[in-house]
């Protein structure tokens, strides 16, 4: 089993378009949408839900009003300003249990809370693992772990798990890329795109994950494309391909299909080449 995470430091660089396209091109794949805070991959994959499971994503304090004597010890000890009128604000509580410790009346306990659902779907491209997170839900790093576990559970030895990673560099991204055989960073030639590419490459390096890059809409700013290529060269990061700006890419999204399914699309052709390069790099067998 090989696991590849498609990531971007910044959102909106075309990560999901690239990911859906690679998932369409690969054989023997299992797909995981780990962009759990803003999942979009399901909009490009024709899928049917097989099962849903409650996801207990966090532990929060709960005050039993019958035992509470309103002594305010919990209010004083809480560093997260999470107790108001002797009830716990679920959006603020971090589940640290300081209130449990200080309560002289054993009125506070820590309980597991459902913060979303993990979903396993079947699609014409194979199993598809994804999730739905409730608003403001915490512990999404753990949810990413769960989504990946659901996906890898269906992957055989020769299978590839294609992961749509979260944007950013925080805990969800860390959970998306750790233990992967490779990450493919989808960048775009903007100042912020370059800045964020550097941050996410730092992160991959920090966790010892092999990184590759590709540049989407590279022709929008050839100068910055050059700078990104140069930066990657200096760090020994292979750029597996450059994808031209192509209106058919956004049309594909509107039609709910990956852009590689549009035969004459320039972006699709470029992504096909990226897949060939990635396959070679990872030594993925072809049937």
């Amino acid at each position, binding site marked *: *089993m090989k696991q590849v995470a498609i990531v971007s430091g910044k959102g909106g660089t075309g990560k999901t378009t690239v990911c859906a396209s690679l998932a369409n091109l690969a054989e023997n794949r299992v797909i995981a949408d780990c962009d759990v805070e803003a999942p979009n991959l399901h909009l490009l994959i024709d899928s049917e839900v097989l099962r849903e499971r409650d996801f*207990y994503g966090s532990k929060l304090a709960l005050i039993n009003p019958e035992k509470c004597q309103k002594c305010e010890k919990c209010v004083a000890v809480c560093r997260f300003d999470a107790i108001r009128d002797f009830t716990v604000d679920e959006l603020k509580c971090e589940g640290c249990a300081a209130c449990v410790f200080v309560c002289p009346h054993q009125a506070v306990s820590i309980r597991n809370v459902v913060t979303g659902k993990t979903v396993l779907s079947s699609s014409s491209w194979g199993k598809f693992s994804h999730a739905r997170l409730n608003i403001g839900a915490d512990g999404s790093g*753990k949810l990413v*772990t769960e989504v990946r576990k659901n996906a890898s559970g269906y992957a055989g030895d020769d299978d590839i798990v294609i992961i749509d990673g979260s944007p950013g560099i925080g*805990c969800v991204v860390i*959970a998306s890329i*750790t*233990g992967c055989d490779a990450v493919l960073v989808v960048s775009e030639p903007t100042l912020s795109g370059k800045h964020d590419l550097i941050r996410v490459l730092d992160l991959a390096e920090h*966790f*010892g994950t092999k990184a590759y890059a590709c540049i989407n809409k590279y022709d929008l700013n050839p100068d910055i494309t050059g700078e990104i290529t140069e930066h990657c060269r200096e760090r020994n990061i292979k750029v597996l391909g450059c994808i031209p700006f192509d209106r058919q890419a956004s049309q594909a999204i509107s039609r709910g299909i990956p852009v590689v399914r549009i035969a004459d699309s320039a972006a699709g052709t470029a992504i096909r080449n990226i897949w060939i390069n990635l396959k070679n790099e990872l030594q993925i067998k072809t049937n």
Partner: protein
Amino acid sequence: MKMVVTAEGRDLDAPVDPRFGRCEWFISVNSDSMEFDCSANSAVNSSQGAGIQAAQFVVDSQAEALVTGHVGPNAFQVIDASGIKIYDGTGLTVKQAIEHLKNGRLTEIVQAGPAHAGMKRK
């Protein structure tokens, strides 16, 4: 000798779970009498620091040895500081691993593997 083995099932015929922090079960075995009990790994559901929590379980169980696959840097530190030896039981059943350990045929893990390796393989 008392030892803890990470396992994919609940008895001695189960395969050793190569993951440590996010393994399914801990089997605590007395290698002389082969008596054992099984506990679910509560760390598997922690949102962070699963390896550390699992290591704390092993330390608290007062085992002298741990048989598993990959141990990340944090968990390694906790187990190592308690003087518990770690052995690689990848590919064996729990029973085989214990026999191998008694005969000195298990490799000792003397260095932490990469972090979050439990994400890598089932």
